[in-house]
């Protein structure tokens, strides 16, 4: 399974994703520039965290016009795996690949801490290695992670089982329905604010992010 990690100007969790996949999971991931127009040959694409284009308009807003975006859209349509973490999630919503939007945290402050998440859907290719309703510890680090969608969209998300991760017990940013991560209807596009790539080594404080990558890699093998 060949994985592309897209580097936008201002991406800064690209190396974290690269190391989690290559060094820890022994997968085959490589960086691709935001200028790339084709992602042929890749089975999955990851939009890492960071501050693309400084997040100067809205987080993720400017990145949606990068040259690589049509290729990402095509991969999503073709049923390949698309994962957006933090700024990557923001970009996926700005692109319209996932519904809703991410607002500033309710506290108006950037928050970096490890939070508890509950796995609400373990049936998509990113979560099969988790138990349904499993509680996991994953770090967050964002200033605009307050998920918002209107009632109709929320009803749709619930109906289709698109809510993948919820904040458990403590909602750090004010997200509606404690939403921390959602997928598209088909389940091949996942966006999440928490950083699973920061939770893959015991020495760094925990490994609850590993099953996500294992699920992901396993699904690639089967596909």
């Amino acid at each position: 399974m060949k994985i592309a990690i897209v580097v936008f100007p201002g991406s800064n969790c690209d190396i974290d994703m690269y190391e989690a996949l290559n060094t820890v999971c022994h997968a085959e991931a490589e960086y691709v520039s935001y200028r790339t127009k084709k992602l042929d040959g890749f089975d999955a694409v990851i939009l890492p965290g960071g501050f693309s284009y400084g997040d100067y308009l809205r987080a993720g807003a400017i990145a949606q016009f990068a040259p690589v975006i049509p290729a990402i859209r095509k991969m999503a349509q073709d049923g390949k795996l698309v994962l957006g973490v933090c700024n990557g999630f923001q970009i996926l919503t700005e692109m319209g690949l996932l519904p809703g939007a991410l607002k500033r945290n309710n506290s108006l402050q950037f928050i970096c801490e490890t939070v508890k998440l509950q796995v609400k859907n373990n049936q998509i290719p990113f979560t099969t290695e988790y138990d349904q309703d499993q509680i996991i510890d994953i770090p967050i680090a964002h200033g605009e992670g307050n998920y918002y969608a209107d009632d109709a969209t929320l009803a749709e998300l619930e109906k289709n089982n698109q809510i993948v991760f919820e904040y458990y017990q403590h909602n750090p940013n004010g997200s509606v329905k404690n939403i921390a991560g959602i997928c598209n209807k088909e389940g091949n596009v996942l966006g999440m604010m928490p950083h699973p790539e920061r939770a893959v080594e015991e020495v760094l404080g925990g490994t609850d992010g590993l099953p996500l990558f294992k699920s992901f890699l396993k699904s690639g093998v089967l596909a």
Partner: protein
Amino acid sequence: MKQAMTPEEIKEEKPYLDWSLTEHEYDYICDKLLKRLPNYTEIGLFSAMWSEHCSYKKSKPVLRLFPTKGKRVVQGPGEGAGVVDIDDGQAVVFKAESHNHPTTVEPYQGAATGVGGILRDVFSMGARPVAILDSLHFGELKNNPTMRYKMEETIRGVGDYGNCMGIPNLGGETTFDSCYNGNILLNAMCVGLMNIKDMEHGKAVGLGNSIMYVGAKTGRDGIHGATFASADFSKEHETQRSAVQVGDPFMEKLLMEACLKLILKHRDWLVGIQDMGAAGIVSSSAEMATEGNAGMKLNLDLVPQREPNMSAYEIMLSESQERMLLCVKKGHEEDVKKIFKDYNLDAVTIGRVIEGENYVLYHEGEQVCDIPVRSLTEDVLEEPSKEIKPQYIIDAEKMPAWRPSFESSGETLKRLLNQPTIANDQFITQQYDSQVRTNTIVKPGSDAGVLRIRHTKKAVAMCTDTNGRFVYLNPKIGGQRSVIESVCNIVASGAKPLAITDCLNYGDPNDPEIFWGLRESCQGIADACRIFETPVVSGNVSLYNENDGQAIYPSPMIGMVGLIKNTDYVIPMHVQEADDIVYLVGKTTADFAGSEVQKMLQGKISGLPEAPNLEVIHDYLKNLHKAMTQGLVTSAHDLSEGGLAVSLAESVFDTEFGLNINLSEFDKTLLFSETPGRLIVSVKPENKSAFESLLGSAVQEIGRVTDQRKLSIKLANDELNTDVASLEKIWKESISCLMKSKA
């Protein structure tokens, strides 16, 4: 044009006095250095380059006190940052810098650009910045909404810049004292990593080589920032906002990646590289020419400008952020441009290295400056300073020592944990990304931050410490104690201390008492650095930290870095297992002068802090570190503000444990003494004899870890019995409660 005044008018009207250049210096420049009258641009350049901020003319004699050499020191003070060997061809690169005045005037931008500047210093050496630390000192928060606002903005500024750059914040410190009410201190430290073979220098050499400008365009921001930073601070500065620069971390991220790519992949194209920091183009270019023993010619019309009609003087002195100056080998200009183009940045040739040793500037077709380079950088008149030992210190030496008096140790501990300087600063640190780039082993909130070096077993530990109160009461002892605290923090994490950087934050050095304090405290720092074998490899001086004549405490900040050779022996600050034995390392004396308990109970500080025995402390800390590397120590925590009781409590916060401590020979007041050089450590029972035989009489067994969440301490004349949860609640909520208060 274009000179606002003729040389003769300058001589008559003395505009340079407003730029902090004295008449004596002006005469020296005319008579001895140039042997003619300088023009408007030239005298502007002198005033900036001869400011304390750029020239260290006041502090130089003091800085010479510091030991700067050591077997691991690759680069000491004088370059962008200090470089220290950590084996295997790798080095840590670090420096701290103050941004006190800008932060006081415009906290958000002042803090942000403080971080931006120190990052450039580090990556200009060829190192990738891997951690930021911030040492913050605010006025009291209580009944002070302005200070609370300034604190929020300062934190947001530090956070936004580092978070956007994707460089983790590994800690630092935050203290509160009314002496900082009118003058906030923001000291930012950056730690970088590099392979020693990639080390760069800020130099320009080689006839015909090009001087290239990269990064943001030049505007009128921050003009005279350097002299601004070197002038006393008063109400009228509240309107001087134009002197504060605005930061653009996104630009800096691109600039950093582009510069590192150039340095690491194409070093044969590059001769030298330097950040345009204080005093902008003039200081970076003149320093590079001086370093290379070269002359330099610049055409200011080629400098990318954001605003129209800027004068030569404005272009040269602008402190617009996110700019770097390169010296590029002739013929490689286009190659360099291409590298920067890939990051959407412009690189522009603005001049070249010339024969001789003059610094020549052209603007709008005219020569506006032609002076020897060294007259700007090296010929500055060092000013001998007067010093007087302040009367309050002489008096204190004769006064009987103050001792606290209180009923209940438990209640006193609770009140101490509620003091903002002691209380948990998660309110601040959780606004900083501490984990990005996934190397952080120990996050902020511990004695030292610890970062692993990827693909090795090594890690580096880092901390900052400022002991303004002790330095105020006795500068030399305070200076020594500042270094001791850093050493204890670094050792507590399992690391061996390597070297320090410093930010020397003081008031007006023309006040003989302040200068005396500056020299004495630096002597103290130097003494301690010699004993602990931690040379000073970089640093920064910030004088004139005064507001309406009221000086801050003399507040030297020590930033220390240590090396852990094996990440298996990173030592946590929290206890880990019930029944482990708790030891107190170091002797406890009745040392209350300048302590937190004194400030809390008396409302002020007084007395003479105890002079530490540096050799003794060094010996047992070396042994403690040895015990750690042998796996004999389970946890370790430094004793600082608040003393033993506070540290014991902190060592069980965020755990499921408690402590049962027996100090039946201790007077209850000793729980809050702040004798330096102490730690508490926990040791597994099976390691007891091995540990004790290494540490000998330096340690005292004081109790056990329990699985009950209770802190119990038996004392000679009191008994403390409190549940940990209630202590933890006070400690955790103190700062956020203050921030939310309406008063």
